[in-house]
């Protein structure tokens, strides 16, 4: 029982980076911009978050804001490349990942942030609510960002489906030529979508250092950006499915440190492979599914060139 409660109580913390990452990716990709730079935005957010805590000597919530802003700053380069200069979106995304790997490693080392532990954001205490047996630990003893993530999902679903701006954003991703003819500024919508996506990805990255690991090491994100991309495909660009998928991955990640603890003998590195193997398996399962309905944006990955409008 203890094992189960411990496990369940740890799931939200592991699910949040995937959930925020997938949310950011879906918002960005709904505008038609394929974002393969997710891992890079996570890395920059994670490094900036850790650096901000170490610099300010605390204020973890401010540090999370810095993480989101740092990632958004990097996304200006990405947006300029894919939206203004119409560079191939695959090459641009990959380059952003490698740029971020180099940049985070260089800055963290030069500033002396690497391998330096700090106190980050801790869970909230809701007094009597947190003391309720079982439920208290699982639902009412999380950190603020967990609750914020749920709120952000509600807000995003509303924005994308019920507001003019959200519908226009989806129109831009579905058919930029038609959207342009209807007087929507495709470039502006795509720019903003990339920025919002990067803010959320940066927040997810900051969460990894400021809340989870409380330390920065090179390559800390360990492929979570790529897993988030796979999650979006699994979720077929639908927000609630993405949240469910993130919780599923949270379950698995929260299980990994517990496998050895309860005495199951599996070679360590095979356990560490699991997230990637499971991600592959999930992608296979998604593609085998009988129901091919998807909300994948029709113009995903296609640059918009007004001069070539059909």
């Amino acid at each position, binding site marked *: 029982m203890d094992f189960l409660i411990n496990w369940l109580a740890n799931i939200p913390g592991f699910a949040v980076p995937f959930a925020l990452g997938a949310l950011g990716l879906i918002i960005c990709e709904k505008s038609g911009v394929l974002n*393969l730079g997710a891992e890079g935005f996570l890395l920059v957010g994670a490094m900036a978050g850790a650096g901000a805590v170490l610099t300010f000597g605390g204020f973890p919530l401010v540090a999370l804001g810095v993480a989101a802003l740092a990632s958004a700053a990097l996304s200006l*380069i990405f947006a300029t*490349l894919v939206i203004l*200069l*119409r*560079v*191939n979106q*695959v*090459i*641009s995304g*990959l*380059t*952003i990942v*490698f*740029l971020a*790997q*180099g*940049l*985070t*490693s*260089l800055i963290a*080392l*030069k500033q002396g942030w690497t391998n330096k532990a700090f106190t980050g954001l801790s869970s909230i205490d809701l007094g009597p609510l947190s003391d309720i047996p079982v439920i208290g630990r699982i639902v009412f003893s999380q950190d603020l960002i967990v609750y914020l993530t749920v709120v952000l999902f509600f807000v995003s679903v509303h924005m994308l489906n019920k507001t003019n701006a959200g519908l226009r954003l989806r129109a831009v991703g579905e058919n930029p030529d038609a959207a342009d003819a209807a007087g929507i500024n495709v470039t502006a919508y795509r720019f903003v979508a990339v920025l919002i996506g990067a803010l959320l990805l940066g927040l997810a990255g900051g969460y990894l250092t400021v809340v989870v690991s409380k330390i920065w090491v*090179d390559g800390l994100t*360990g*492929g979570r950006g*790529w*897993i988030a*991309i*796979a999650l979006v*495909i699994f979720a077929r660009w639908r927000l609630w499915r993405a949240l469910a998928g993130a919780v599923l991955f949270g379950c698995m990640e929260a299980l990994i440190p517990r496998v050895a603890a309860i005495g199951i003998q599996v*070679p*360590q*590195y*095979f356990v*560490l*492979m699991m*997230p*990637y*193997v499971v*991600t*592959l398996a999930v*992608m*296979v399962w998604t*593609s*085998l599914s009988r129901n091919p309905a998807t909300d994948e944006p029709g113009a995903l990955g296609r640059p918009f*060139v*007004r*001069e*070539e409008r059909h």
Partner: protein
Amino acid sequence: MSDIARARRFGRINLEIRDDMPMWKQSLAFLAGVAAGLVISVVILLVSGVGLAALLNEFVVFIFTSPKNISGVLVQAGPLIIVGLSAGIAFKARFWNIGIEGQVIFGAIGATLVAINDIGPPSLRLPLMAFFAALGGMMWILLPTILKLRLRINEIISTLLMNYIAFNFLLHLLYGPWQDPVSSFPHSEQFEDFERLAPLGWQSLNTSLLIAVALVIFCFWFMVKSRFGFQLNFVHSNAQMAKALGVRVAALTLTAALISGALSGLAGFAISAGIESRMTQSFFIGYGFSGILIAFLARNNPLGIVAVSILVATLMIAGQSLQVFYQIPFAMVQLIQAIIVICVAASEFFIRHRVRWVE
């Protein structure tokens, strides 16, 4: 003032699509891109505390005046050329092989498997190692290829996930069954003399460079001159039309992907048997991205790949000495490469578009 009046007064930027641009102008734009990337990189290095004189010393004087460093660059260029070819042939078939690092790892695992189990007579040892390396690389690209062809699973993500699986498997081997019995360090035991690529007799050059050159010639013939290469070009420019006209696109993609995997595997062989003389934890780092970058900058042309590889090898060798003397992390090399790609990609905008100021 109305919008129209304002536009008349200040003019506006007008973009036109160019149909064609003379070759010399395109080359000029490309070189301008590379130069801009290098200038930005120099600025970053200056900010990081490396003096201008020191940079000039490390990048120009140090490398091009000492035979030791020239040979160092050429030795480094060998595996880079091979991964560049690997990326190039896959990209030609519109297969985004992002899993080069995983395939390099499995190539080295194949070669090391032969070396530490003493499979085959000593005289056949190296060819066997190369064969198993190619096989290992092919094995590691096979699953993503089948998943793409049969289930239309995006190969960018599947090949990338395979990298992480390969890396954890490598750690499993090095911290477990293949740990060096002599030193107990997490790397494989050292290869015997006959399991290493033979020196060519000048500085540190060895036969891995010859292997790279042979593979360039093979790929040039295969990608540019052969029937396969013709069909590959066809698929690259318009896969649907190629299919409609009877090209077997799936078979072609499978062939190109398997060759790409085999090449990456051979790069793993060239690194382990030609540079490190054993399998280590980190021998593969950076080759995946460098391969993609080299193929992109060289536009998948085998001869261009040689030229770009030498540039990247120079960066890597200079990066090693920056790491030792100025505490600049080796990731700086990756950063510089990324900046160059961004600048060159941006410069292509001006090849395809004409920007005009309209009064």
